[in-house]
């Protein structure tokens, strides 16, 4: 491993290093309140390294394969397994921002814990390391390891409170993720067996050979039965992470039981990283059969949106409701993935950049809005000790600012201007229309209206129902900061979407293959 290789993975090393240091710092300091500050300050290191890579990238597409280095034979170890490009940097920045915000939003929550505070922050940072690895992985085994690195700390975090509900959530999350990992690994094995390669490039190349007809002339979807099964099993693993129907069943339970900041992290950062790897694998590895998975993802997108939104209507617990809401949002985002291909004629797929662009943009806007919602919910549930929607009655009285912030987040999640998700929905439905998926765009629009029903219901409860108690609800400075940053980002992305749009466009160039 050369010095250049170390440089390439330095943000990951820095991230993991901060995690270890936080745990060590916890051992020596009696002032546990300093831990989050330490962790957030520590994030400056990976941030700086990412920025260096960002500026380093100016002229080249992928730092790992920089032309000059390859010629001199200097870089070899990482060539097939990693790619440091604008795509990975986009998601690394997103994960980094979400990590910082979640740590900031956890301060109050963690203060209540008697021990293991350092481990809490450490595990978040380890998981974030896994996500950053995941978004640059270009090889199946690396992807698998990165996914496990992401998931295991999250399972521990879900069980962190050690209350029965929290432990149950953690255990469930662990087992379900283990099952889906096992299925995914089987899919990877099939793909490897059939294509003889675990790199995305190698897999893509194997499609160049003419497909063999079976059963008297017909070619099955994905070119062969082995690939068909392999890809579907791979999709199980990704589908679990992005909470896509029909692999969504764990979501409401975990959202209800796990510590709220962990859920926020799970719903934003983990989801974004999983979408990143989904995009990379499907567009770079399986692009030749894109028309087959395009329609599959379109159907699953419609199912996720519809089921998520309809079941959300009858929820009485706000965290379960947000669990179903996140399933619905996974559906909207999948629309963009499905819209990344269009038939050029005679079964030849054509890459439509606007589809993946809209996915990246949506993930950014969704992160801002969903974090706002969760930070408010954390602040509230810490004071009233309940997540029942009925207990939000009269919140506008007890804390007008929290009520306004939550309303902003919900308005954004419905997709009403001037918030980021409005632009994101516009973008994603445009992509669907351009890819010829008009029916899917219409399903999406109707779903947005349906979703208004349950979000507005909560707004109504907060503003219009009499409060059960007159006691004021306040939040600490750190919670307010987290809410303010996430809320401002929600509006900012909606009013001035230019920067995020350009970043998304630059990032998806990589996917064009």
């Amino acid at each position, binding site marked *: 491993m050369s010095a250049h290789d170390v440089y390439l993975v330095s943000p990951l090393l820095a991230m993991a290093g901060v995690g270890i240091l936080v745990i060590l710092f916890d051992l020596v300091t009696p002032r546990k309140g300093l831990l989050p500050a330490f962790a957030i300050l520590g994030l400056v290191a990976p941030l700086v390294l990412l920025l260096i890579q960002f500026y380093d990238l100016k002229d080249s597409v992928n730092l790992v394969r920089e032309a000059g280095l390859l010629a001199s034979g200097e870089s070899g170890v990482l060539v097939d397994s990693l790619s440091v490009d604008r795509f990975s940097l986009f998601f690394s920045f997103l994960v980094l921002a979400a990590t910082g915000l979640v740590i900031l939003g956890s301060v109050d929550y963690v203060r209540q814990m008697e021990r293991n505070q350092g481990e809490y922050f450490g595990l978040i940072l380890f998981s974030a390391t896994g996500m950053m690895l995941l978004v640059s992985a270009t090889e199946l085994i690396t992807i698998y390891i990165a996914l496990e690195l992401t998931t295991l700390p999250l399972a521990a975090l879900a069980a962190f409170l050690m209350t*029965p509900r929290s432990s149950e959530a953690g255990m469930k999350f662990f087992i379900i993720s283990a099952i889906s990992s096992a299925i995914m690994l089987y899919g990877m094995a099939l793909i490897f067996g059939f294509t003889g390669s675990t790199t995305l490039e190698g897999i893509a190349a194997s499609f160049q050979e003419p497909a063999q007809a079976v059963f008297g002339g017909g070619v099955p979807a994905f070119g062969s039965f082995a690939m068909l099964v392999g890809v579907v099993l791979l999709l199980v693993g990704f*589908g679990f992470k992005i909470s896509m129907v*029909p692999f969504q069943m764990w979501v409401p339970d975990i959202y209800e039981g796990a510590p709220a900041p962990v859920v926020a992290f799970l719903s934003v950062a983990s989801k974004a990283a999983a979408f990143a790897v989904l995009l990379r694998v499907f567009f770079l590895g399986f692009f030749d059969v894109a028309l087959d998975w395009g329609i599959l993802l379109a159907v699953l997108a419609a199912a996720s949106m519809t089921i998520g939104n309809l079941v959300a209507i009858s929820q009485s617990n706000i965290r379960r409701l947000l669990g179903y809401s996140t399933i619905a949002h996974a559906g909207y985002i999948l629309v963009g993935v499905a819209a990344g291909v269009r038939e050029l004629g005679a079964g030849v797929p054509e890459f439509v950049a606007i589809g993946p662009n809209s996915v990246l943009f949506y993930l950014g806007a969704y992160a801002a809005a969903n974090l706002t919602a969760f930070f408010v919910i954390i602040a509230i549930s810490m004071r009233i000790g309940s997540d029942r929607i009925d207990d939000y009655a009269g919140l506008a009285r007890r804390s007008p600012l929290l009520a306004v912030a939550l309303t902003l987040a919900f308005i954004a999640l419905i997709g009403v201007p001037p918030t980021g998700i409005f632009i994101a929905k516009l973008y994603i439905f445009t992509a669907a229309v351009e890819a010829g998926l*008009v029916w899917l765009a219409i399903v999406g629009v109707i779903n947005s209206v349906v979703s208004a029903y349950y979000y507005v219901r909560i707004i109504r409860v907060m*503003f219009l129902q009499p409060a059960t108690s007159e006691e004021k609800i306040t939040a600490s400075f750190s919670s307010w900061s987290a809410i303010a940053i996430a809320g401002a980002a929600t509006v900012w992305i909606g009013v001035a979407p230019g920067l995020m749009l350009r970043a998304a466009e630059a990032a998806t160039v990589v996917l064009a293959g």
Partner: protein
Amino acid sequence: MGAEAAIWAIFFLPLASFGVIALIIRPFLNRHYALSGFVLIVPLAAALGLSIWALRAVIVGQDLDFDPHLWLEVGSATIEMGLLVDQLTAIMLIVVTGVSLMVQVYSLGYMREDTGHARYFAYMALFTSAMLGLVLSINVIQLYVFWELVGVSSYLLIGFWHERPAAAAAAKKAFIITRIGDVGFLIAILYLFLQADQFAAENLNAFHIPDIWQAAQPVAMGGAILGGTALTWFALGIFSGAAGKSGQFPLHSWLPDAMEGPTPVSALIHAATMVAAGVFLVARFYPVFQASEDALTVVALIGAFTALMAATMALVMNDIKRVMAYSTISQLGYMMAALGVGAYGAAVFHLLTHASFKALLFMGAGSVNHATGTFDMRYMGGLWRRMPLTYVLMVVAGLSLVGIIPLAGFWSKDEILTGAWNGSGLVDGWVSRVTFVMLLGGVLLTAFYTFRMLYMTFHGEFRGGVDRELEVQEQATRDEATRGPAAPDQVPATSGLSGQHALVHLAESPVAMVAPMLVLGVAAVFSGYLVNPQWVKEFGIPGHWISEFLLTGVEHAAPVLADRIELHDFSRWIATISTVVAVAGLGLGALLYWRRQDGRQVPRRDPLEAAGPVHTLLSQKYYIDALYEGALVRRAFYRIIAGTLDWIDRNLVDGTVDAVGWIFRNIGSVIGRLQTGQVQAYGTAIALGSLLILLGLLLF
């Protein structure tokens, strides 16, 4: 550059007020009553001045075509933000800034005792600015953004008194129903995305409104990118959004409930401006509608039907604001119908006059509520002696609404009726005739309910106001208590018991409330004839001024099709017929209500109740609300669909997988027992899900 900045300022002035009130006054200076009011009123006055200047600039033909600014690029679609200042915009700017200014002054008096005045004026500023942005938008996406913002601020204002459950429910209902209409609008916008490439091939931008007009023109004019059935559906999609906002059947049921908001809000949003946004939207895309006879037919018939049906419901309402709400729906129906039959100028003209007299009527209702504490007309009566000024103004506005010569409403309604009678080359003859008949029927009903409203409010003996209303309610509750529990919908709604105004003090309202009413009263008398004189030319204003003026705008946008719109001269016959019908309506009202008092029995029996089942049908609003909420929302949607899915999620899926999981567990499961069996279930669901996908892929 200067001109562009001046017009942007019309939009930004109230927005700045919103910022100042929300960020500075409300947190720090909330105690200073009226401060936030003035922070809004002064910029609004400036915006009105600029609007007048803009109107003048449009009249003299000054070049107001500004280059739009790039906002974002999405794929091949370029979305810009810019100003569209044409004849229609110029008129709308005057209506919005003018009425808003009057309403804010009025609010200084009306909201005096409410503690939330900073919040109130902040919402009002947000609304006004969003409405101005909507009117000025040159890009359909930009327009949609403001369209939604207007909806959000309306939501906030309807629910302003959020301690009242009825206000809460009404706010939610308004938000959801208008969004149902918006689905059509959004699909129309999506269709533009689909056509973006074709637009680009013609060097047009699919979202630039003038380019959309261009694209809808016949091939000879270099257009026809939009054409045929697609154009009709596109136009109907836009109309669906417009119908939601403007309360057209079958999306009308939110507007009467929206009356739960403060009365000045009703005057501004739910009478003069926001609800007229739907009419504005159709007018804005008129060059597109012109190209589709089918779309115009739908607009005309829905408009005419709404005009008639809403008027019938207005006959039996006891809440004065609800009478006005149905009246507003009905009048919006007139405007839509006018657009449908090709009377473009008349529709916008009616929008203008209606804004003045309907805002005045609402302010009058607020003034009456200020005195009596209630909105229920059954507890009013005899107020004309105590509130002469309000009385005179309400009568003027009411007669203007009925369409009595020479008040403003007469001229605009007459123009609509003339347009409908003569028809145009845009729709079939039978459509305009049917429309004419329905609208004429509407005139009769309008006259009747207006008389009934004015009579019940101001004449006869005073029937006790809110004090008496509360007594009656207590009595009813006691009766219910002895008879057993009441069904929830039988509990009489308390109207207007906002706490602040729940005191009877019969006297004229303060100057801040009466002064803007006087200004609007002058407009309700003169605005009709002055802006659209029919045969006298001595004021130096050319005949048919506003209709001609608006028509130049459409002709400029759609030269070929606009030729099929004709301006019809004032017809003595139609004027006579409509006046006779209106007077007949008033007479019928007089016959039924005049001096028919059964002593002071309160609430006295309404003579219309003699109609029995018809009365019930009307007062139950044709059971449309019951259908929507009971059958559609609660039963069909919520219970059946959401409930079923939830049940499937809980039982069927869990159950099936439980069964499979049970097998696993009993083969000495490695997983072991958790607190619930769900983990096995979820794991099995994953396996089943992947099998399902595989099967699906193999089969299709």
